[in-house]
């Protein structure tokens, strides 16, 4: 039997908030993501290199932040296949200090528009913050609901 997404189009309205989540990120997280994604740019693991190119410290991969942010959407729908479109702008880096705590990425999201009553698609606008700064801009997903 095929089940559809957990969320019904009829049950959401413009302004409906998705459950917010906070994602921790340490140096170890970045090393692991580098291996899994194949992005070995040293600004994501080598403090000396990062500072030489003018960054305050090692920064997270933008694509790591993008991957975490959309989890607020995919955890909401259950089926990540419900995501039809997803885009972000990388506005500020997530700076990851070399300690046990690292950094945090706080993601909130809400339904910004009901796009199509036939296709049951909605636009979800996401906000991602780290250390009090907005790290993603224009962060939007189009999602097909049940």
């Amino acid at each position: 039997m095929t089940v559809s997404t957990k969320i019904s189009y009829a049950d959401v309205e413009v302004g409906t908030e998705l459950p917010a989540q906070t994602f921790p990120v340490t140096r170890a997280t970045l090393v692991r993501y580098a291996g899994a994604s194949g992005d070995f740019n040293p600004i994501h693991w080598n403090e000396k290199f990062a500072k030489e190119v003018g960054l305050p410290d090692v920064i997270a991969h933008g694509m790591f932040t993008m991957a975490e942010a959309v989890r607020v959407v995919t955890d909401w729908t259950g089926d990540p296949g419900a995501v039809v479109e997803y885009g972000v702008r990388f506005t500020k880096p997530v700076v990851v200090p070399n300690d046990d705590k690292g950094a945090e990425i706080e993601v909130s999201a809400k339904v910004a528009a009901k796009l199509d009553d036939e296709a049951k698609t909605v636009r979800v606008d996401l906000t991602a913050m780290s250390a009090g700064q907005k790290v993603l801009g224009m962060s939007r997903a189009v999602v097909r609901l049940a």
Partner: protein
Amino acid sequence: MALDQSFVGRTYPPTEPYEVGREKIREFAEAVGDANPVYTDPEAAKAYGHSDVIAPPTFVFAITFKAAGQVVEDPQLGLDYSRVVHGDQKFAYTRPVRAGDRLSVTSTIEAIKSMAGNDILDIRGEVHDEAGEHVVTAWTKLVARAADGE
């Protein structure tokens, strides 16, 4: 130095197929800390109508960005990659990427702009499966910051 506008619209040859492995998807899902079973358990994926485990939405970037290397490293274009940062990223999906897919990417330069000494390059990667069906399109905006002293 501003990039040559005549490269706008240039399309590069499709890449050799990348075969999406279940364990590579698992590795990626674990790296982003995502325990959704549709990434690791074929039965959970089937419950949502997928024929095998699917990949997280941003997984395909590793494939499209590697393909964009054809553009970024094109000596005729002359982009200084050491100064490049990732500006924007967008995906539009026909269906999710899933294990067993053999994906080929066709990269096109959509736009070249110059602003305040920065070169801005928009690359579109069209991802197709082995049957030639569209899977996802990835748009990547790269910004090459102005060289010091310019």
